[in-house]
């Protein structure tokens, strides 16, 4: 299936998201990727049941209860590698990406007038998994916690934004929208 053609004519990721099969595939790959990131931060050979519908769980469970599903002993060595090789930064940038694409319309808002309310439901649920991944990179690791607290997210190349902003502030800003 040549999705490139279709997507290039949509011109916007919203074009993909309104088509359920593409949404499901996209979210499937995204969730599979994030599970790999989380698994990497834990000691032991972690495996979660393949039949788990992570999107359903992420949508319906409170954040803390959802995060508990991924409890495990942190692997400090791999947490350090993830920090030093900037995987933590990349995952944080991923977590903001969809929001930045739709920032003007407050995409996470539960307001019924939000045009992205239904189209971005999968991406919104994925935010919980992004946050779990970031948590697991920092769990019981003060260096990683300090690193995350110090970091600023850089504007993307070609972005209209010219200033760096604190990652913590970016998260706060997004959460305020998330809970509004």
């Amino acid at each position, binding site marked *: 299936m040549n999705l*490139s053609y279709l*997507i*290039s004519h949509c011109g916007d990721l919203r074009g993909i998201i309104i088509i359920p099969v593409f949404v499901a595939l996209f979210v499937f790959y995204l969730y599979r990727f994030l599970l790999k990131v989380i698994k*990497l931060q834990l000691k032991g050979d972690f495996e979660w049941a393949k039949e788990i519908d992570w999107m359903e769980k992420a949508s319906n469970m409170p954040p803390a209860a959802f995060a508990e599903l991924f409890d495990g002993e942190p692997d400090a060595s791999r947490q350090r590698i993830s920090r030093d090789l900037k*995987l933590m930064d*990349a995952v944080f940038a991923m977590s903001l990406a*969809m929001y930045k694409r739709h920032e003007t319309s407050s995409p996470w808002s539960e307001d019924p007038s939000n045009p992205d309310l239904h189209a971005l439901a999968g991406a919104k649920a994925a935010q919980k998994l992004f946050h779990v991944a970031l948590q697991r990179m920092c769990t019981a690791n003060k260096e990683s916690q300090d690193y995350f607290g110090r970091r600023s997210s850089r504007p993307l190349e070609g972005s209209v934004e010219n200033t760096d902003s604190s990652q913590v502030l970016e998260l706060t800003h997004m959460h305020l929208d998330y809970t509004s």
Partner: protein
Amino acid sequence: MCVSVHEDFTAAACHCVTVSLFDLSAVIYSLWHKSPQNVDGSSSQIYLHNTEERRSKSSDKIQDEANVIPKSFRLVFSSVRSAQDIFKLILVPEVEVEGFASVQALLKPACLYAAEVADKTKTLTLEQFEDAIR
């Protein structure tokens, strides 16, 4: 990837030598063991930096991808520390090699997703994302 080595750490106009990635370990080994000294015999601490200069892009790579994922860096050993450009040299025990490989494998799809999705002018195809995750 290529590496530029400042041969004379005290000279204002440094002469640079470009070596291949395969020579990087030899360069580091050499610098480590020779204890680079200034003209007056004193020692200098040197730092491995990214100069933000890139080598020419491969002609078979599409322009968009080249902008998203840095394919190569020009590195330089310098006596002047620049925190934002510094590279860490990490001694890697064998048990951590697998961890490095795993993290590196995840970096490409993460960078691809972050850059393509955040930029309204770009589209990320499922094929690209799936290929990157594999």
